[in-house]
């Protein structure tokens, strides 16, 4: 029996979560620049949906971080 299997599975899950966080972060950076451009162009109403969506993306990133933290705790401590 391979005793490293849970370790490897844990790493795979963490890597997957990290990739998803990176994708969300790229979207969030784009969103920030687009909201800023709109604001500077005088379209101030774009700030509200920009902030809401950015908040949702942050919560998703936080959720993934907590997932990574939990996997890390479970796998390393058994």
């Amino acid at each position, binding site marked *: 029996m391979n005793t*490293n299997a849970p*370790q490897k599975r*844990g*790493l795979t899950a*963490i*890597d997957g*979560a*990290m990739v998803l*966080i*990176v994708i*969300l*972060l790229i979207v*969030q*950076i784009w*969103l*920030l620049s687009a*909201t*800023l*451009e709109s*604001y*500077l*162009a*005088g379209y*101030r*109403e774009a*700030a*509200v949906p*920009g*902030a809401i969506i*950015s*908040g949702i*993306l*942050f919560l998703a*990133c*936080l*959720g*993934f*971080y*907590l*997932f*990574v*933290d*939990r996997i*890390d*705790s*479970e*796998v*390393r*401590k058994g």
Partner: protein
Amino acid sequence: MSWFRKPSGTPLWRDEFSVHTADERYVNRRQFTKFLTLTSFGMLVGNLWILARAAFHRAPVYPQMAVASVDEIAVGGVKTFAYPTTDDPCILVRTGNESYVAYSQKCTHLSCAVYYEKEENRLECPCHQGFFSITDGAVLQGPPQRALPRVALEMKDGQLLAVRMEGETA
């Protein structure tokens, strides 16, 4: 299923500086994920800052300022001036016998000075080849993402007056 990690009796220093090489990969990934999440929080703060600026925005009061007399510049000619403050260069273009347009001279990309390209009848930023429509200041081509802020003009007693800026957030 709990989202939060189980309470551990292990001291934090021992958790973060594991003596096992295999565990180090976990620590590195967890710390990098924490860094990414903090970066995401920074993006959110940026968006909230824009929201706060938008919520507490007050419409600026613009002064009236004589820019030029009606026949001062020829058709196709230009004149530069500063409006609403001396730090805001603008460009006035006479596009026809009775038509004038004026825009902020700062390119919306990186604030280089735009100039009027008479042959193509458009405004050009020479730094990164950004082109703007002379009709409404909209971006025609190049890296700028926003139209040039327009100076609203009024004609009074043979004088062209700049009365306000349009299409910009002060």
